[in-house]
């Protein structure tokens, strides 16, 4: 059982939840840029929560299913076609043997996901299938997907086709909450004030390792070199250019730049899903407020997955599709 990559955008990779426990050995976990969208894609087709899937950056691609599969596309609003028929994102659908799935460009997000039933079954490395592009680990030879790649798919079993009605990202000014530090004292009061009062824009320079921000320059009066210490996803490093870099899923585990603040866990997926040119403001919160925000976001993610509805009513407008026993697939599992 395979899924063939016919066309693919840049920076598309295989991801599972990530490769945890190796930060002390210099290896960041990789894993999905938007964990919520990743978990949703698996839930929509009844996969195990951590089954590996295709992550794509902005542009989707075209895929050929060798055998019958259940699939779901999540991350944002996007045009999805299955053998010429439109399907909704965030809705499980079925592909026939030899069927083609075409995914367009994400309209309101940066990172999208294509999950297939059984999961992508590339060999695990250090216990995970996640691609770590910087270190060349996992996925397909540790690299981004290319046209012609043939991806192994795991064993199939019956499962549901579910749907989720996604809320559009809110219009208007975006606020991203941070906890100042651990090296905010390297920056003057004026620079710290500018960090919070002036909007930042997502620069086109981003990848799975880091996102560069455009905005007020942040010179560090304490200097831009520190004795390297450890980082976390969401660390905001400020190198000598004064332009902040936010560390992402493949961020380096240690770094020699002062870190003015850390993005809170509840807001990190939202920041990662902003597209180049989008602007936002930082807002400082306390550790206690961030902990509460995290609890709420974990709860909201769980509730979202527990309230998925069967996909449909199915309106394929074709006798042939109806004959494929789609309805039992909806209710199975």
């Amino acid at each position, binding site marked *: 059982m395979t899924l063939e990559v016919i066309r693919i955008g840049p920076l598309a990779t295989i991801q599972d939840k990530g490769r945890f426990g*190796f930060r*002390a050995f210099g290896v960041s976990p990789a894993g999905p840029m938007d964990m919520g969208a990743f978990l949703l894609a698996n839930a929509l087709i009844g996969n195990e929560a951590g089954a590996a899937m295709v992550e794509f950056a902005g542009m989707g691609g075209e895929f050929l299913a060798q055998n019958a599969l259940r699939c779901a596309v999540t991350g944002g609003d996007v045009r999805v076609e299955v053998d010429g028929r439109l399907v909704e994102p965030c809705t499980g659908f079925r592909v026939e043997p030899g069927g083609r799935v075409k995914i367009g460009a994400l309209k309101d997000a940066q990172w999208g996901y294509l999950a297939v039933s059984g999961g992508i079954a590339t060999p695990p490395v250090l216990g995970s299938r996640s691609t770590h592009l910087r270190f060349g680990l996992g996925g397909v030879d540790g690299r981004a997907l290319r046209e012609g790649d043939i991806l192994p798919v795991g064993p199939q079993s019956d499962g549901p086709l579910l749907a989720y009605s996604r809320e559009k990202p809110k219009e208007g000014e975006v606020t991203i909450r941070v906890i100042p*530090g*651990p090296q905010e004292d390297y920056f003057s009061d004026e620079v710290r004030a500018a960090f919070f009062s002036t909007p930042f824009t997502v620069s086109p320079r981003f990848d799975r390792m880091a996102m560069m921000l455009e905005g007020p320059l942040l010179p560090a009066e304490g200097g831009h070199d520190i004795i390297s210490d450890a980082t976390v996803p969401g660390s905001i490093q400020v190198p000598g250019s004064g332009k902040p870099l936010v560390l992402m899923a493949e961020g380096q585990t240690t770094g020699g730049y002062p870190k003015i603040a*850390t993005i809170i*866990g509840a807001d990190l997926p939202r920041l990662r899903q902003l597209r180049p040119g989008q602007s936002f403001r930082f807002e400082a919160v306390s*550790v206690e407020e961030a*902990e509460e925000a995290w609890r709420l976001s974990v709860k909201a993610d769980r509730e979202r997955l527990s309230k998925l509805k069967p996909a449909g009513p199915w309106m394929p407008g074709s006798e042939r599709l109806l004959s494929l026993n789609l309805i039992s697939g909806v209710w199975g599992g």
Partner: protein
Amino acid sequence: MTGDAKILPCGEQALTVELSRSIDEAVNRRVIALARDLEASPPEGLVELVPTYRSLLVRYDPLLTNGAAMTAELQARLAQTGKGESAKGGRLWHLPVLYGGEIGLDLDDLAKDKGLSREELIRIYTEAEYRVYMIGFAPGFAYLGGLPEILHTPRLKQPRADIPAGAIGIGGAQANVNSVIAPSGWRYIGWTPVRIFDEAREEPFLLRSGDLVRFHPVDEAEARERASREAAGETTVEPEALS
């Protein structure tokens, strides 16, 4: 000895215990002592530890604990372990090195720059004992302290491409063993056939922060023989446990 330690938030899921803002062997010993203490009896909600030169990152699950509780716990642990370090849990590795050759391409130039013979440089490098201060940059890449001062050498302005795994390097006041093929501005004097990182091995990473390392010269025949055993999945060195 906890007065000079700072416990700083890194978001709501990690704290940095900062023992100093400079490099110092005694500070690094305290970092390792604290990490070993936490590993031996992990507090509720502890997820992961990342020791560095002069600080310890403590990642925790805010659904199981919180920043205030973890900070209090870390302060108590610092008070217990702050007096200094025991070598308990430490390991000493003896790594074979083929000096010079294609990979140790800077050996002769470095010896000349320092007014040493090739043999003298190898002897000085070999007699020193190195300490893994931190692992970062690449999978298993160990930053080693303890390089004798005469061998301190600035990095190249223009890094070289494709320095192989196992290359033995000097960068400023530090030494290293390259863990994967990577570009590097360090100067290289030799090569160890021992695999510092092997993703297929049961223990993929050879070195840990706080480990001690000594190097000894081997000839090309021995280096090649060990390399083929390592390639077959064998680890040809065993650490000495320190107590």
